[in-house]
Structure formats: C-alpha cells, structure tokens
C-alpha cells in the first residue's frame, strides 16, 4: 500500500484481468501477475488521477485521498 498522499486499494478477487487500469495509468503503477490481473507494483508513483478507479468495470480499485469525498 502506498505511503504517499494517495492510498490505492485493490481487490484481487474481483479483478477479471481486462487490463484497462494497466494501460490507462499515466504513472505505470501497475504490472500484471501470472493470471494477467493487475498488481500495484509502484504505489509511490501514483498521482491520484483516479483513472484506474473510474475506468475499472468491476470496481476493484479505489484511490483514497485525504480530500476524498
């Protein structure tokens, strides 16, 4: 989990390995695991843009921010 400003929550159980978050993250935060599901590999690079959260069709990702709400 990220130590920085944005905390990424990822639910591996719900991930269907569509690859959208991996392709659309501008900061290359994600890599894939053996099942092609997303892995948060570089959480510190996260800019908090929330693209991964907004485009995830299965609601696996949630970006927590201090000012979120």
């Amino acid at each position, binding site marked *: 989990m990220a130590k920085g400003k944005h905390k990424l929550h990822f639910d591996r159980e719900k991930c269907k390995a*569509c690859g959208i978050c991996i392709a659309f993250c501008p900061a290359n935060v994600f890599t894939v695991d053996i099942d092609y599901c997303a892995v948060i590999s570089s959480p510190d690079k996260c800019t908090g843009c929330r693209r991964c959260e*907004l485009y995830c069709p299965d*609601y696996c990702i949630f970006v927590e921010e201090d000012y979120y709400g």
Partner: protein
Amino acid sequence: MCAVYHKYLRLDHLPHIWCPGCGNGIVMGAFIRAMEDLKYDQNEVVVVSGIGCSGRISGYLDFNTLHTTHGRALAFATGIKAAEPRLKIFVFMGDGDATAIGGNHLIHACRRNIDMTAIIINNCTFGMTGGQFSPMTPKGKKASTAPYGTVERNFDIPALAQAAGATLVARVGIYQVNLLRELIVKASHHKGFALLEVISQCPVNYGRRNQMGDPAEMLEDQKGIIKSAGLGQGLENYFGQIFQSEQPEFIEEYNKMIVQAQKKGGCDV
C-alpha cells in the same frame, strides 16, 4: 470498494456477469457517481431496463428496479411515471433493445416528452445473443450475421431522438466517464424526455470479430474518435450535449386535461 459503490450496489449480486473490459460496468460506475451528486432518496428512484447484457444493470443497482421485456423498457417506464409522477426514472437499454425491437417505443417516448432519463448503451451489437448486427453496427463492420461486414447504414441516435421530439439529447463515450456522470445529472434535472447515447464497448462479441484488440485498445480507439470528432464533420460525430429545448411535458399536460375535464363535470361522451 469505495463507500459510494457500497451504497448504491446490491453487493450480494456481485461480481456482475459482464465479460472482462465490458463497457457496461464503466457506465454503471458513472451512473453510481451521478447518483452521489443527485442525492435522491433511493426509494424515490426507479431504474428500468430492457433485455440484453446491458439490461442486467437493473439487477445490480439498489433502487426500485424493473427488468422488463426486450424493447419495452420505455413502455413500462411510461406506466410507472404516469402512475407515480414524483418518481425519478432512469431507463437503460442496449442499442438493439432501443433501436431495433424497441425502435417504435423509443420514437413515441421522445414524441410524448415524458419526464425521464433514457440511457442507450451503444456497443454496436447484440451482445448477449452472440454479436448479431444491430441498427447501430457501423457499415462495413462484421457481425455473426454479417460475416463479410454489414451493408446497412446505422442510425444517428441523437438526430433520430431530436427529430422525434426528445428535449435533451446527448452523445458521450465511456472514455468520457466524468462527462457521462455530468450528463446523467443534467438529464435528470431536465424536465422532459432526456436521451443519452453512450458509446460503449463489447470486446467479446464485437471487438474480437472486428480485430479491435483488447478492451484497453478499444477504449484507446474511442479516445481517438472523440478527439477527432466535432471538427466540422456535422452532428453525426459530435460528442457532448447536442440539443436542449423546452416543450410541454406529458404528465403536466395530462394533469391539465384532468382539471379541465373535471371543471366540465366529466367528458361529453
């Protein structure tokens, strides 16, 4: 999962049945965030849907929901609105549902200008039944029933709806998730029939057949289409709100008629 999803989804019905990267999940996410903005009491909202992959949306959302028959979502929704005009109505349809079997219901709902928000999730195909071509499959694209590509032209949904009498019309892509959220809010505030065409994606039964790559590549493609749209190419390629006008709304007109008839002491027949 963030709290807003917890609030508006029937969590015991998840995971949903949609394929990996299906646009339906992205549309439902945007709808949930629009509900967060609108702050309606969930008991005052009705989500109606037709049949198809997109039609499953009513099963996952935690409001009053009605999963109707193929092409008839707007007819059921009209009945609900007429019986309980205070309710906020959102109708989800697939492109096949709304423009093929339900085409007639669509134009007449537009014509009546009944106060509700209709959302057509256009994935250019009959997704659920295996990728037959729909009236929204672009000319030349392949389908299970058009192995060499379809020879038919597709409808321009916003132009069709505007001509039929809808009073708020917009086209938006799932790539524009934030705009989609804003347009759902705007459509719901609009008094009259609001229609949103949401360009979505079916990576399995449409994308694969047309060599459009994985779900991310399809979304990337859509980004390109949106970025190059509206540059003097006419209405057909326009994204965003296209039209809004003020016209008499069906329920209001109906209520006026009741008052008039009561004044006369009933009708003449």
